[in-house]
């Protein structure tokens, strides 16, 4: 991979969103990934609807949680994603109100990515932002800087949060992943979280995935 990469400076990342008091991080992680894939394949950056996934992805559990792999599958079955404007976020489960005519974006498939962080960085730099799941240890009080908790405290076996890798690099020789979170811009570094790269910190490499747009 190149020494550093940041999809935010290349226009592939929408603004930081806020899931509110709802465990819908999985939906934000997936829409962030699909927004990036669509941008890279079609050149248009569209802010996509998480509420559609909350309401219409019957495999996942809306505010009680979900899995990116199920969400990709739901998007394929539904026939695509509407935009945030057309199907805006409410932060709680509603009746499914999806309309295929309004869908602006579709996906063809989804893939699991390598657990090797070097390969993951190379893939990200070439193919776009990546949906990942991590152990959110310490994030309740995270303010800024590169987080690198002790492994036993941030076990890769206790994954409980889904986010989006948008880039990577080094800050004073400390390697990091730049992570887009969905807790609003008044958390972390304007909504972003920086996690140590190369040590499997907090399980960041265990559930990396992406949609495929042909």
């Amino acid at each position, binding site marked *: 991979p190149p020494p550093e990469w940041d999809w935010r400076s290349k226009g592939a990342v929408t603004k930081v969103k806020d899931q509110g008091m709802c465990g819908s991080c999985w939906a934000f992680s997936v829409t962030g990934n699909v927004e990036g894939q669509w941008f890279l394949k079609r050149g248009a950056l569209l802010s996509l609807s998480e509420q559609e996934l909350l309401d219409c992805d019957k495999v996942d559990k809306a505010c009680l949680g979900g899995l990116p792999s199920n969400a990709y599958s739901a998007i394929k079955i539904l026939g695509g994603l509407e935009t945030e404007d057309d199907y805006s976020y409410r932060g709680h489960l509603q009746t499914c109100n999806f309309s295929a005519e309004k869908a602006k974006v579709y996906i063809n498939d989804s*893939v699991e990515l*390598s657990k090797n962080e070097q390969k993951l960085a190379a893939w990200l730099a070439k*193919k776009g932002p990546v949906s990942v799941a991590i152990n959110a240890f310490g994030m309740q*009080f995270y*303010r*800024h800087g590169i987080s690198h908790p002790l492994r036993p*405290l941030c076990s890769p076996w206790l994954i409980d949060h889904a986010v989006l890798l948008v880039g990577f690099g080094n800050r004073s020789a*400390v390697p990091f992943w730049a992570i887009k979170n969905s807790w609003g811009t008044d958390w972390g570094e304007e909504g972003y979280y920086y996690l140590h790269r190369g040590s499997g910190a907090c399980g960041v490499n265990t559930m990396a995935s992406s949609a495929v747009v042909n």
Partner: protein
Amino acid sequence: APNKPRAAGAQAWELASPELLGPARFALEIYNRGRAAGARAALKAVSGRVRRAGQGSLYSLKATLVEPPCNDPTVCQLPVSKETLLCSFEVLDELGKHMLLRRDCGPVDTKITGAGQPRGAGMAQIRLHSGFNLDSSLFQPNPDDRNDTFSSFLPLLNKDPLPQDFSVKMTSIFKDFVTAYNRTYETEEEARWRMSVFASNMVRAQKIQALDRGTAQYGVTKFSDLTEEEFRTIYLNPLLKEEPGQKMPLAKSISDL
């Protein structure tokens, strides 16, 4: 702590040292925030002490500020001549990041009791215009605190077994949190409960900080009045570790492509 032996009965204040000027200037900057250039108070003298904990330092400062004369009727109803203020500031410095935890200012009668003390003694008993002595003002909630939304909470603190300065300091930080994140609590009980959650979360954040091997800073965030359980339940997604999810094909690595 003052490096001169404490004089019996008097609060020995260390004379201003270069180390105090940094936090003092920070406090003055906050004090002057929003003021036009000609209307800013100037720092005349500062003394105080510093306490170190973990990677931070807590400065308790006594600063004498001089307010410029005011003749602009849009700013002050009546012309005011130059005024001297005595302020007590608490500045938390964590790895070069300053935080103003407390600010108490009041006009001062500049008679310094024990006048004639040699300047070098660094000892002074300065009485605030409002008559109570400096030390108690450092730990009394700022009088105008009582007028703000938080007043229902302050009396509760006296019932706590917490030591006085801890609870007052924590009140100040919690008050800033409530203001910064626009928190409102239904009842005094709720406010009391949230304050205790906040205080224990401050301790948790410090432990996480101490155990982090990166460059991250942990501290007060918008989630600081939530218990760990509440935070997990509301914002996190335990399904991720519980369910395998749909099988997806493994992407070709870039080199393969």
